């Protein structure tokens, strides 16, 4: 898998001394294939290494299956299949599962790799209209942190409502 586009900023110092007067929102960035995505960090309850996931026959293709996290049943979704950038679910050594709280259950989001936390200023977030074309409910905007990466910011609620 080509991960060349995943930019791991070496210069964390630049972020650290960032101007505290500005409102910053924290995002967790991760890879789906070769693209970098991010969600607000507050929506993530936990990051897990993959546990055995049992496939659920007849479920939507984006459902990887169910797993048990300390006795709690978690439905795992494959965002790549949800976004139609992959046809099969692949779990690698770098894969992680982000646990998020949906209204009535806990959902696990399967991602290929967790990158880092970005603290974005309002100026670093472009509205979803910046992408042009058809507006997707789950796209919250585009993040352009100072290290030059481009993050597709996700809005998770519409994904649960399906």
């Amino acid at each position, binding site marked *: 898998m080509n991960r060349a586009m995943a930019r791991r900023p070496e210069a964390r110092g630049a972020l650290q001394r960032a101007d505290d007067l500005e409102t910053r929102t924290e995002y967790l960035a991760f890879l789906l294939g070769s693209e970098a995505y991010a969600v607000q960090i507050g929506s993530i309850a936990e990051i897990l*290494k993959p546990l055995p996931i049992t496939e659920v026959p007849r479920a939507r293709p984006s459902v990887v299956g169910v797993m048990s996290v300390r006795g709690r049943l978690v439905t795992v979704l494959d965002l790549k299949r949800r976004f139609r950038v992959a046809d099969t679910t692949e779990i690698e050594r770098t894969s992680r599962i982000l646990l998020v709280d*949906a209204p009535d259950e806990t959902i696990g989001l399967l991602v290929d790799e967790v990158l880092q936390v970005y603290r974005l200023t309002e100026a670093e977030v472009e509205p979803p209209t910046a992408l042009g074309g058809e507006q997707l409910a789950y796209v919250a905007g585009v993040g352009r942190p100072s290290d030059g990466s481009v993050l597709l910011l996700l809005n998770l609620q519409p994904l649960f409502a399906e």
Partner: protein
Amino acid sequence: MAEHGGGRGDSAGDKAREEFFSEAQEIVDGLSRDLLALDEVSKRGGSDAELVNDVFRAVHTLKGLSSLFGAAMMSGLSHELENLLDDLRLGRIELSQQVLDLLFQSVEAYGRILAASKGDAPEPAAEVKALLGALGQVAQQRGGVAATPFTQYELDPGMLGVLTEYEEHRLRTNLQAGLSLYRMRVQFQLFTIDSALDELKAKTRPHGEIITFLPTGEGGDAESVELEILVASRTPLATLRTALGGPNIVIEEVSRRPGGRPDSLAPPATGLPPAPYDDGTQTESGAAAARTSAPPPPPSIPSDVLAAPPFASPAAPAPQAQREPSARELTLRSVTQTVRVDIRKLDHLMNIVGELAIVRGSVAKLFERVRGDEELRDVATDLHRLHRAFERHLTQMQNGILEVRMVPLGQVFDKLARIVRQISREHGKEINLVITGSETEIDKLIVEELSDPLMHMIRNAIDHGIEEKDERMRVGKPPVGTIALNAFQKGNHVVIEVEDDGRGMDPALIVDAAIRRGLVDESDARELSVKEALAIVFEPGFTTRDDVTSLSGRGVGMDIVRTNIGKLGGVVDITSDVGIGTKMTITLPITLAIISVLRVEVAGRTFCMPLASIEEAIVFDESLVRIFEGREVLTQRGATLPLAHLDKLFGLEGHRQGVYMSDAPTPKPPPVSPTGRKPRRYVVIGLVADRRVGFVVDRLVGQQDIVIKALGDSLAHVRGFAGATELGDQRVGLVIDAAALIAEVLASVGEARQLVHEPRVDAGGTL
């Protein structure tokens, strides 16, 4: 509504509200039980002051609680009801059928108000308004109380003067009933007075009724007090003395005065206007006339008019003040020593037990590893002992949690008793409902889901089962129909029977009706057994009645009954004898949380099938498979068994991966026997409510008790699974919903049959 949303960010206020609603529900349930008991008593022509009091107290508490929480509709209703009940316990109105009806309607209204508060239903505003109107009407009928000459008794005028209106009423009623009056003087130690008094009350209860108790103001000192207790009883003085007597108790009979001279302290009720009691005010116009023309306006003689003079008497205000709180405050305290627990919390505990079971498994494995090692022999012995102790305690804990989830079936039976009463009144069919085994316990979640199906069954029994009175007399049955509701435990199951002594179900009529409605082919119908014919009533769209009554007969109901019971892992059976009656039997697992399953393997995946819905498992002999109307079937014990390959049903053919793991070992290929023949497979015969389907699986793994967990909302669209469970090794196994799969398979059999049918007709062939 908002207070039930999702359980997140609940403030303390929301929690208190939630508790209020659940406490209110408990009180309403108790109210319903008391009313049913009262109904029984009144049917026998009696009355029970204590029950009326209980009902009054319950409503009083509801009123207090609901106004505290701003539940206006509930507090408004409680207020009116309280007035009615007050009139009732003071004998100002009679416990008539009409009044009982109103009380039962009020319980229903409370139920709906509570449902509305959970957001399950709209607020029953119109219903409550009508009810309030009706309650007001009854209040118009209240009469005064005929004076009874207390003067005949040697009673202390001071005591008579401080009797509350209720006490006066009870005294009067008891004297009218010819009971004797006793006066007890009892010394109480101040620091034990509460418990000692309760004890004395309990001892007195079998003999009679305590009318009142007052401090005498004599015989006491700094640490004790003397009470005078007035008791009405049928028991002779000597017996009473033996039963209650003690060193500090003096009992004497209150003697009658020879002449009964007029006494200035006679109740002032004599001066009241005559009661508009039985003079036609029950009708609308009569009531209106009474309102407009009757010279002394009868609308509600305010209770304080009646009570005022004795209260105004300044005889002993102090003891009055002392007694009041004990009676009133008690009613606001919670009655039982119980804790209400959200069932989700119990589920959480059960999950932890599940986790511990996995730890236990690991300990067992560790023991296996060290047991062979000579050097570690001591460690192995210790580990073994620890493991055994762990296991024992874990089982106890599991059983303990399961026990907590259990509630008596009486919870739902009480509700049914109310419904039976209501329906039988509406339809003029007298029904005697006999309940046994209401103490039988079952999982809380099951109880909640049971009330609808049972209600359908009982409605059917009343509407279709029990005949009209004339018809019953004609065939020599007692005019009053009987419905028996029996519950008992049978192994790991609870059995509930609904039995009526009505006309029974005629299989021939059922088959006819089914043919008319196109549910069965005429040719198939001939081959149906009696049992199969009776089972047709569970088919969607079946009914034998042509008229649609408000009860049932709409052709819906029994199929829902079967579906709902099936969802709980239960089955329904019918037996019926024409002219004698019908019995429906529901068999349910005791708990939903833990079920026994058979683990099976299909295409490398493990699934759990609830044992409750498995008839048996047999070796799959492909040579016996016949193709019948496009479907694979086996002949099993003389009956046709449709087959379904679980791998095809679940779309698992071809790909063999069942569990995703980062370092997944390649899944084992299915076992191939050394002879090179195809591996042996099995047929698991699923049986839910008389419907059978054989599921073909690759391997039987074994039987296991599992803790079942619901799948999340995001999998709500997936059919065929009842939930999932942990299998150990952190792996999750899916639990098959046998009822749903069987229905699905049989439905597709129906489609296949139609497809096969049509070409034959086209070919002009005769059937």
